[in-house]
């Protein structure tokens, strides 16, 4: 999988592409956690090109969310495809993550 980092003002966007599973979770974890600023991080994980997420991928996203929260920052997800959304729904992640329909909406929520 790929993780492409861009910046929009003070917001870091990580675009996840491909499959986030047991094979790819470790490298994505390094990329995602490495992009978290030490103070007041503001991040969006764009999942519009993410085809699959396994429990290993959920774990990485939750680790990042916890780290962002500990740094008093904000993290949102956007663009979940139906199968990824389903995994979020059944795991309960839909109710604990902030999820926007697309990147524009996510960035607009972080003025």
């Amino acid at each position, binding site marked *: 999988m790929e993780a492409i980092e861009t910046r929009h003002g003070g917001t870091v966007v990580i675009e996840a592409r491909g499959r986030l599973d047991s094979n790819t979770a470790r490298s994505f974890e390094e990329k995602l956690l490495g992009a978290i600023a030490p103070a007041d991080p503001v991040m969006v994980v764009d999942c519009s090109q993410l085809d699959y997420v396994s*429990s290993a991928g959920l*774990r990485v996203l939750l680790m990042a969310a916890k780290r962002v929260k500990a740094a008093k920052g904000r993290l949102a997800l956007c663009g979940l495809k139906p199968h990824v959304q*389903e995994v979020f729904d059944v795991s309960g992640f839909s109710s604990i993550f902030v999820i926007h329909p697309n990147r524009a909406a996510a960035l607009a929520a972080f003025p």
Partner: protein
Amino acid sequence: MTEPSTEPPCQDGSIPAMGPPPLRQSLTLECRIDDLVRIPRWFEEACSFPGLPSDLLFDLMVCAYEAAANIILYGYDNPKGHAITLEFARSDDVLVLSIEDDGRPFNPLERPEPPAVSTIADAPISGRGILLIRRLSDGLEYSRAAQYNRLVIRRNLVPRCEPCRKVQE
């Protein structure tokens, strides 16, 4: 052929038309994380058939992936040289996936249900694999015989309504 069930589990459920004959496929994985990539390919190429809703096959694929990943990660001190056998079968009204391994005994049905969480801070980092298997299946059976674990996962060929698929808050 027997008639499909006329009692779907949800009020808005419908029964897909089933035409093809029973299907049975198998896949043997090496006990390596990088061999897990064969699971989604196998489901797409060997287990699909006309009339099968793709969502149901996806659900079973998720179950297979999570179960196999658990076996590789936790089933052995050294998984090298061991194998996991997956068997997929379809009858008129159910998909059945059997997963066998010779790892240490492990009954996922005995694992307690993780508590419902409402915040990022409260959510435990791990333990979602078995939760996904439970939520995305309609029946689970575990047995241990001749040093083999056998997990049987059933998925009914009847769509469930959305509220049934979600964690109850």
